C-alpha cells in the first residue's frame, strides 16, 4: 500500500483490519513479521521553506537527501545532525529520533522538531506544535512522536528548525582508545569552546569538531589543541554505526561512567556525545554483562527489541497505556528494532 495523500493514508488506516507497519525509506525500522508494510514514500515533498525564519516543513516521505540538498542550496542545513543512511526519509529520521554528533551542541532531532501531523490508529489526522520556534500551546506531542517508532501513529508532515551551514570546520584529533578519549572529550566539553561534535572512532581516536566563522574557529581550535595536545585537521567524519556481524547495541551513560562500561565490552564501533553514547557489536543473541550505571542499553538490531535494565513498571505501564490510547486496535505493529540493511553491514 502506497498512499499519495494524507487523506488516503487516513482512509487506509481507518478501514484496515490487518496490522500495518509504516515504512519510510526502510533503512531503520523493520516491519514486524507477517504484517502489511505501509509505504509512506508517496507522501513526499517540501511544503514550505523559509530560510530567514530558519524553518522547513516537509511531508514525511521526503527523502532526507532531497531535503538536505534544498537546504544546502540556501547555505543551510537541518539544525540537528541526522545520521545519514542512503534512502532514509525525513519521517523515518524523526520516528527514530536519529541524532548524530551535533547533539552535544544543539540537541537531538526532537529538539529541532517544531511540529508534526500524523494519523493515529483510528485513522484520525492530528496536528501538534507548529512551524514557529517557540510554542508552548497545549501538550508537547511533538516530543512524544519523535522517536515513537511508528507506535502511536504514522507521521505525514514534519516541521523542522534549520541552521546556517557553518562556513569553517576544524577537527581536533587525539589518538588513543575509547577509554582514553573520555577524558579528552570531557576536557573539550567543559571549556568555552562551543564544540559541535565530540566522538571517538577506532583507528582515529578522540575527535572534536569546532565550527563557525573563520576567525572564531581559528581561535578556539588553537586554544583547545594546545590544551589537549591535539592535531588540527580538516578531516570530515561521522559516527554512523554499522555492525559487521552480530547485534548492534546502543548504550547510553554518563560520560564519567563510560570507562567502567568500556572495560566490560569489546572495542566499540563508535562512541559519541562526549562518551554518553557507545555503539558496540556483540555476538548474536548475547546480552552484555554491565556493572550498574545510570543509563540503559538497547539492542537495535536482531529479532526482538531488548533493553537493559528493564524499565520501571510504572514507566512501562505509561508507555503501554499511551500506545493503547493512540492505537486502540493495535493496528501499528512496529516492534521498534532496526533493520540490518546491507548498507549497515557493508
Amino acid at each position, binding site marked *: 500500500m502506497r498512499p499519495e495523500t494524507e487523506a488516503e493514508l487516513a482512509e487506509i488506516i481507518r478501514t484496515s483490519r490487518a496490522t500495518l507497519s509504516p515504512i519510510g525509506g526502510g533503512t531503520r525500522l523493520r516491519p514486524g513479521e507477517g504484517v502489511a508494510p505501509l509505504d509512506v514514500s508517496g507522501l513526499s515533498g517540501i511544503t514550505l521553506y523559509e530560510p530567514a525564519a530558519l524553518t522547513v516543513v516537509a511531508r514525511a516521505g521526503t527523502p532526507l537527501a532531497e531535503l538536505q540538498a534544498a537546504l544546502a542550496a540556501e547555505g543551510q542545513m537541518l539544525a540537528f545532525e541526522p545520521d545519514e543512511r542512503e534512502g532514509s526519509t525525513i519521517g523515518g529520521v524523526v520516528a527514530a529520533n536519529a541524532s548524530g554528533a551535533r547533539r552535544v551542541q544543539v540537541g537531538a532531532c526532537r529538539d529541532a522538531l517544531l511540529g508534526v501531523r500524523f494519523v493515529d490508529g483510528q485513522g484520525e489526522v492530528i496536528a501538534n506544535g507548529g512551524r514557529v*520556534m517557540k510554542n508552548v*500551546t497545549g501538550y508537547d506531542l511533538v516530543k512524544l512522536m519523535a522517536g515513537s517508532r511508528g507506535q502511536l501513529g504514522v507521521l505525514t508532515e514534519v516541521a523542522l528548525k534549520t541552521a*546556517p551551514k557553518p562556513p569553517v570546520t576544524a577537527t581536533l584529533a587525539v589518538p588513543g582508545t575509547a577509554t582514553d578519549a573520555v577524558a579528552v572529550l570531557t576536557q573539550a566539553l567543559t571549556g568555552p569552546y562551543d564544540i559541535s561534535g565530540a566522538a571517538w572512532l577506532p583507528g582515529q581516536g578522540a575527535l572534536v569538531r569546532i565550527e563557525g566563522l573563520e576567525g572564531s574557529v581559528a581561535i578556539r581550535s588553537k586554544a583547545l589543541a594546545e590544551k589537549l595536545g591535539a592535531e588540527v585537521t580538516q578531516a570530515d567524519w561521522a559516527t554512523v554505526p554499522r555492525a559487521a556481524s552480530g547485534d548492534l547495541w546502543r548504550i547510553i551513560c554518563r560520560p564519567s561512567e563510560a570507562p567502567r562500561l568500556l572495560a566490560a565490552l569489546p572495542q566499540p564501533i563508535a562512541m559519541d556525545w562526549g562518551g554518553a553514547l557507545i555503539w558496540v557489536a556483540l555476538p548474536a543473541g548475547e546480552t552484555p554483562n554491565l556493572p550498574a550505571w545510570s543509563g*540503559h542499553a538497547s539492542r537495535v538490531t536482531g529479532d526482538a527489541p531488548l533493553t537493559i535494565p528493564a524499565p520501571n513498571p510504572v*514507566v512501562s505501564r505509561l508507555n503501554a497505556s499511551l500506545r493503547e490510547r493512540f492505537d486502540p486496535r493495535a493496528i501499528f505493529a512496529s516492534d521498534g528494532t532496526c533493520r540490518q540493511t546491507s548498507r549497515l553491514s557493508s
Partner: protein
Amino acid sequence: MQMPAPDQGVIARRAAIAARLAHAVPGAVIDDPMETRAYECDALSAYRCPPLAVVLPRTTEEVAAILRICHDERVPVVPRGAGTSLAGGSMPTADAVVVGLARMNAVLETDLADRFIRVQAGRTNLSVSGAVEGAGFFYAPDPSSQLACAIGGNIGMNSGGAHCLKYGVTTNNLLGVTVVLMDGSVVELGGPMGEAPGLDLLGVICGSEGQLGIVTEATLRILPKPVGARPVLVGFDASETAGACVAAIIRAGVLPVAIEFMDRPCIRATEEFAGAGYPDCEALLIIEVEGSPPEIDEQLALIRGIADGFAPVEFRESRSEDESRRIWLGRKSAFGAMGQINDYMCLDGTIPVSTLPQVLAGIARLSGEYGLDVANVFHAGDGNMHPLILYNANTPGDLERCEALGAEILKLCVQVGGCLTGEHGVGVEKRELMLTQFSQADLEAQMQVKDVFDPQWLLNAAKVFPLAVSAPRREGLRNAA
C-alpha cells in the same frame, strides 16, 4: 473568565481533609482562610480564588503522601512553584489543595564533568545558575522572572528566556525529572542526555502545566560560561525596517544569542522610567553575541555590515561592562515601566518572523479599533511577541475590552501561521482560544495523554483545554465517583 463550580462535597469535608494531610505531613499544612489567601492567585492577578488548603512538603515522599490522600479523597490538586505564571496556571479553585514546592529548594548533586545539576523542583531558576557560577558554568534558560520563578514552574510552562535563540528553552535543557503521579506513584523520567527507553515521556511532562504529575526533582544541563558577551543597540525609523534587518542577519548565517525588539511606545515609556539613554526612534534592536573579544568583534563586524544596509538611525556598540548594562537596562525594565504608567496585559504569541511587518500593522489597526494603546517588546529572533496592552483597571469595561483585543491579536498570530503562546503557557487565560489553533481531534489527542497520567482528572484540571471540551472528562468522572 469562567471557572467550573467547585465540588461542594469536597469543600464540606475541608477540616477532615486538612487533618488527614496534617497527620501525614506534620507542620506543612495551611488551612486558615486568612493564610490561604496568600495563594489565591499567580501573576495573572485579575483572577483570584483562595484554595481549600495549602501544603508545603519538603521531600518527594511527602508529595507522594499528599497525592495519595488527595487521590483517595478525590480532591483536586494545583501544583505551585513561585506563582509567577502569567496565564493563571497556578491559580487555585475553591475545592483544590495547592501543593507548593517553595520549601524544596536544595541542590542534590552537581557534576561538572558530566555537565549536569540535580535540584529539588522548588529551587529558583537564578539560584541554579548561582550554584555553578563559581565553577564557570551556567543554566541557560533565563526567564525575566528568574529571581523568583521555580524550576518546577519552568518545567510546567516550558519557559523560555532572552537567550533561547542559541540555547533553547527549558525542554532543550532538561535531562530528567522525578515526578509524582496523582495516585502517589513516583517515577523517574529521562536519563543521561535526557534519554530513556520507550516514548519520550520527559518531553511530554515539560510544558504540561501541572496537569500530568508533580515534578519534585529535576536534572538540568549546565554549560560552560562563554568567555564574554557584548550587546549592540541599533535604532531604526520604521518597525518594518527593524524586522527586515533581523531577517537579513539570520539569513546571513550569524546566530546571535539574543535579538530583542522594542517599538516607540515601549522605548518612550522605558526612557521615562529607567533613563537608559535610548535613542528616540520608531524601533530598536538589542543584539547580543558571545565569545572571546576577537570572536565578538568578528560577529559584530558582520552584523554592522548588514545593519548598515538598512540605514539605521543609531548603531551603538558597547565598549564596557557599564555600557552593556545600560543597553540592557531599558529592555529589562520594560515591564516595570509599563506597570508604572498603566495597568497592562502581556501577550505571548509567536509568529513566523517573515510575517512581522504584517502582524505589527495588524496590531496597530486593532489597537485603533479598540481604543487601547499597545506597546511592542519581543524576542525578534524567534518571533515570540510580547505586545503589552495598556488599560485602566479602574475604568469599568476596560479589562474586558483589553481581553477582547488580546484575543484578536492572538488570533492574528495563529492566522499568519503562529501560535497562541510561545512561553507563558495556556493556563486559564488562553484556554478558550485553543480551538482557533487546534481541531477537536487535536485536543482529544492531548487529553488522552492526561487520561493516561491522571485518569480522574484531579490535577489542575480546569486549565489548558476549553471548559466545554474538557467537561465530559471532568464532570463525567466526578459524577461517576
